[in-house]
Every structure is written in structure tokens, then in C-alpha cells.
């Protein structure tokens, strides 16, 4: 596999809105919803790549295009070095899509029956079906529940069964669409550990994870793409994305003492965009959070002013924005 597992260039997709009977009957339709608008991403091989954004920003559409379930209007799609733009049916040889919804299994069949069915459809050699199914059930921790109907499974168990089905296909790339949707925090953390330890570290899979869960992305993803209104607004490591927001402008000053008058003066200072003070609640010191227009100029002035008013400055630290703050800010910019 090449260094870049998936490369997407200028990918666009609009969906027709069937507002009339004519819209159902015809391909020509004047009403469209833009799902993707010139998306460009490079997914490195062998890690977890997160696609982050609110509902409806185009994450699932992008995953479905990568899986060959939806055809893009324009753009190029290269997977494992192969340009598959014109042959989306070949994508199933490279990627496995694991849908986020619970309904993709046969609920009247047991877990093992579901996996045996899909093993044959994925062309697992006949003599290996039983072993492979048992193996993937073991991997996702469903061996004991394998003989029960899927209808009796919890949401988390259905998600794990869905991932087990994905493992049967034996492709290098897995597309996970909101895998922890509907899971309680404990189950979600178990699934995160499974994705990281089993899928990435033990099996060396490349994972593309669509999520709107910031904690999930921050915990799992080496790189993330922030999507907003069908576009990738930013792409890179979680830290680099966070630094894009108010980059180098957010500071925290720890003080042993603080004068209220100095606080008032600081808030009126030109270039101070925001100022928040946390009292020494359980700590032995005050914490002052500032966003500054030109910190290189203003930080010395702020520190001087605090010192002059009798404040004892303990530490000055640059603060990175959280991922959710970054997404919120990037969304507002667009």
C-alpha cells in the first residue's frame, strides 16, 4: 500500500430534491442540495483519520462515495494508488464501509448466522467460513452472544457485530460511520480501545472515522478533517487544527494575588479581546484567561500592569483551543 491510503481531489456532490412528481421521474431537476463542494483530503495509511463536523455537513456522503454507494458529480478518487474515479465498483476490493445505523443486519437471524451469510458473500473460502466467523466474533467480544438473535442485542453489540462483518472483507481500509452513535460512555470507550488496539495496532488497518464526537476524535485520530457545509475547512493533527483558532492569541496567567482594579484596567486595554478570571477555587492561585490581539506586544504590558498593582505572577502559558472550539470557530468563519 502507498503512503497515502486515500486521496480525494475536488470531490463534489449535489443531491436532487424531489419536490415534484417530475423530479422523481426525471434526471433534470433545478432543485439541489449541495452535500460536498470541492473536498480535498489525503488519508495517510495505517492510522485513524477523523472526519469531524456537525450533522449534515457531508461526512456520510463522503464515506458512501469512498465505498462506491454514491457516485460523485466531479472530482478524482485515488485509493491505495489506484485511480478509481471511473470505476467505483472496484472500491469494494479496497475499502469496507461499516454503516452507523443498527438496521444493517438481519435481526431475525443470530449473530453467527449473519456473519456466515456475509462471509460467503465476501467470498471467504468455504472451508474457512466457520473459523473466520468464530475468529471475528472473538475479536469483537461477541462469542458468547453469537447464538442469539441480533434483535436481542444492545446497540453496542450491534455496532460490534457490524465491525465484525467489516473484518470479514479483509480490506486494508475501513470506513466507520459514527461507530459510537447511541452507545453509552463505557461502551463507547471500549469500542475506541478496540478500534485503536485491534484494528489499527494489531491488524494495521487504515480507519476513516466520521464523527461529531470531539472527545472521540481527540482520543483516536492522528489526523482530522473539519467539514463544514460540504467543504473541508481544515485538515491536520488535532493540535494543529486547534492552533488554527486564535493561534498564539490565547493565554493563561497564574497569579498568587490579584487586584480587582488591575482587572478592570486590563479589560479596558486596547488589544485585549477577552478576559476571564477564575478565583482560587480549590487552588492556591488565581487564573486569568486572555485572548490578545498582538500577544507579543501585549503580554509584557499585561504582566507589568499586574506586577505594578501588587499581583504576584506565577506563570504565563499559551493555551491551545479545544477541538470543539476550533470546529465552532471554523464554522463561524464560513
Amino acid at each position, binding site marked *: 500500500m502507498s503512503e497515502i491510503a486515500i486521496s480525494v481531489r475536488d470531490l463534489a*456532490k449535489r*443531491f*436532487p430534491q424531489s419536490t415534484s412528481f417530475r423530479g*422523481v421521474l426525471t*434526471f433534470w431537476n433545478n432543485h439541489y442540495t449541495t*452535500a460536498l463542494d470541492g473536498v480535498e483530503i489525503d488519508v495517510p495509511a495505517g492510522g485513524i483519520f477523523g472526519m469531524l463536523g456537525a450533522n449534515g455537513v457531508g461526512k456520510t*456522503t463522503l464515506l*458512501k462515495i469512498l*465505498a*462506491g*454507494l*454514491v*457516485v460523485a458529480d466531479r472530482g478524482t478518487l485515488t485509493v491505495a494508488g489506484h485511480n478509481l474515479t471511473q470505476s*467505483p465498483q472496484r472500491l*469494494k476490493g479496497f475499502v*469496507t*464501509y461499516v*454503516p452507523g*445505523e443498527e*438496521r*444493517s*443486519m*438481519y*435481526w*431475525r*437471524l443470530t449473530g453467527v*448466522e449473519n456473519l*456466515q*451469510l*456475509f462471509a*460467503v*458473500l*465476501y*467470498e471467504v473460502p*468455504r472451508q474457512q467460513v466457520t473459523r473466520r466467523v468464530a475468529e471475528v466474533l472473538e475479536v469483537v467480544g461477541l462469542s458468547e452472544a453469537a447464538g442469539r*438473535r441480533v434483535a436481542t442485542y444492545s446497540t453496542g453489540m450491534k455496532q460490534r457485530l457490524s465491525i465484525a*462483518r467489516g473484518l470479514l*472483507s479483509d480490506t486494508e481500509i475501513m470506513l466507520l460511520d459514527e461507530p459510537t452513535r447511541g452507545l453509552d460512555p463505557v461502551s463507547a470507550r471500549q469500542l475506541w480501545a478496540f478500534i485503536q488496539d485491534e484494528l489499527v495496532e494489531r491488524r494495521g488497518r487504515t480507519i476513516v472515522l466520521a464523527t461529531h464526537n470531539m472527545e472521540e476524535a481527540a482520543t483516536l485520530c492522528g489526523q482530522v478533517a473539519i467539514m463544514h457545509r460540504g467543504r473541508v475547512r481544515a485538515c491536520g493533527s488535532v493540535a494543529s487544527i486547534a492552533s488554527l483558532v486564535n493561534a498564539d492569541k490565547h493565554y493563561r496567567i497564574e497569579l498568587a494575588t490579584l487586584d480587582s482594579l488591575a482587572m478592570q484596567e486590563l479589560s479596558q486595554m486596547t488589544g485585549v479581546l477577552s478576559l476571564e478570571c477564575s478565583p482560587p477555587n480549590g487552588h492556591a492561585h488565581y487564573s486569568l484567561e486572555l485572548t490578545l490581539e498582538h500577544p507579543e506586544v501585549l503580554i509584557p504590558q499585561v504582566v507589568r500592569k499586574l506586577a505594578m498593582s501588587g499581583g504576584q505572577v506565577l506563570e504565563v502559558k499559551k493555551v491551545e483551543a479545544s477541538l470543539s472550539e476550533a470546529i465552532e470557530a471554523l464554522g463561524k468563519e464560513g
Partner: protein
Amino acid sequence: MIQKLAVLFWRDWLNARSYRMAFLLQILGSAVPLIVLVFMARLFSGANVQGISRYGGDYVAFFMLGGVVATYSLTALSAFSTGLRQSQTTGTLEVLLLTRANLFTIMFGWALYPFTRATIQMLLHLVVGFLVLGLQFGNADLLAVFASFILTIGAMVGLGLIAASFTLVFKQGDPFTAAITTASVLVSGVFYPVDVLPTWLQGISVLIPQTHSMESMRLALLQGYSVTDLAASLGALVIFTAVLIPTGLFSLQVALNRARVVGSLAHY
């Protein structure tokens, strides 16, 4: 491909068996037409109906074969779209299409179980007709019966694939199946011979594959007509099969491509 078809059949068998009440009612329900047949046999016992003299004059045999062929062809017509519809509503269509099985394997996988059930039902009817109602199949030309049977399946599979294309696009309210079902019941000669219809309706009946299926099946089974004797009916069925199967496959591919373009594969 055979292994994939077998596992898809197994899925439907497990699924059907899991709904115990429905499964039981289905078995009991298949006995209803047999009971109707028994009462009809009493009513028409010994009667020689002039309009059907070329089929041997026995209305019970005429009616029974009409029912059998109609049931079988309507199963073929609806099997694909019903399977597709169930897959849309259960959310399994996308994941099936993501496997290494192609669309046509998946489609035929949906049809296997209903076809098997319809075949068992058809054989049961024939056995009851022979043993209980005393129908005579001694003169039957088995080669002609087989040819008629296979060609009927071929033509109806073609129609079934076209019907499934409508389901893929419109989800509900497939106008094609409704039109074919109505036309076949009214003018293809299930309950009465086509000869009794007005001339213009007879013209329409020629365009429906079931008309030729009924004709060839009845004459081969009841009167022992050979393949040569049935050249016109079987020839019509060959043409229907040759035209409808490629048309069905093509329309299904077009419908699938459209669903991928408009992103409606997961819609229901």
C-alpha cells in the same frame, strides 16, 4: 455464485421460519385453493364445457392449471421487487451491494425462496388434482411441459426484473406489477379461455406472456401436445424471454445507477 445463491436461500428460509405464526399461516393458506378446487370439482363433475373442448372439456382441470400457472408467474413477477423492498426497509440493501456478490446474484438470491415455495405449491396442486380430483395427466408430453415451464419462468423473470427496477426508483407504488397482474388475471385465460373475450382484448392477451404459458401448459399436460404442436405458443415465450430478460437486466442496472447518482439506495 451457486454458493452465494445457496446462502441467500438459507437466509430467507431462516427468516421465514423465525416468524412461526406467519410460517404456519402460509402453509395453511396454501391449502385454501385446494379446497376451492375440491368444491369446484363437485360443481362441475361430469360437465363438459363447450368453450374449453380443445383442452379436454374438463373445467376443473382447466381452472386448476390456470390457477397454478397464474400463481407461479405472479410469484416470479413479484419475487424480485418484494425482496428488494424488504431489503430497503430492513436497511440491508447497501451492505449487500458492498459485498463481492453482484447485483444480479443478490436479485436472484431474493427470488429463490419464493420460487421454491411456489414450486412446492404447484406440485402439491398437481398431486391433489391427480389423486383426489381424478385429473388425468396420462397423455402429458413431459418435454413440452418442461419447455413451457422453463420459458414461463424466463419470461416472468424478465418482467420481475423490470418490476424491481421500478421498486428501486419509486420504492412503493410500482405501476408495472399492478398492470401486469391485472392484465394477466383478466385477459390471459386463467378462469376462462381467451376465445370468449372481445376481439380487441384477445389482441391484448397475445402481448401477455401468461396467455402463452396457460395455453402451452394446458395443452401439453392435458392433451399431450408436443413441442412441435405448441410451436406458436412456445415460440412466443422464447421471444418474450429473449427480449424481457435483457431488458430487465438493463433496466435494473439503469435504476441502480440512478439510485447511486441521487443517493437513494438507503431510502425506503
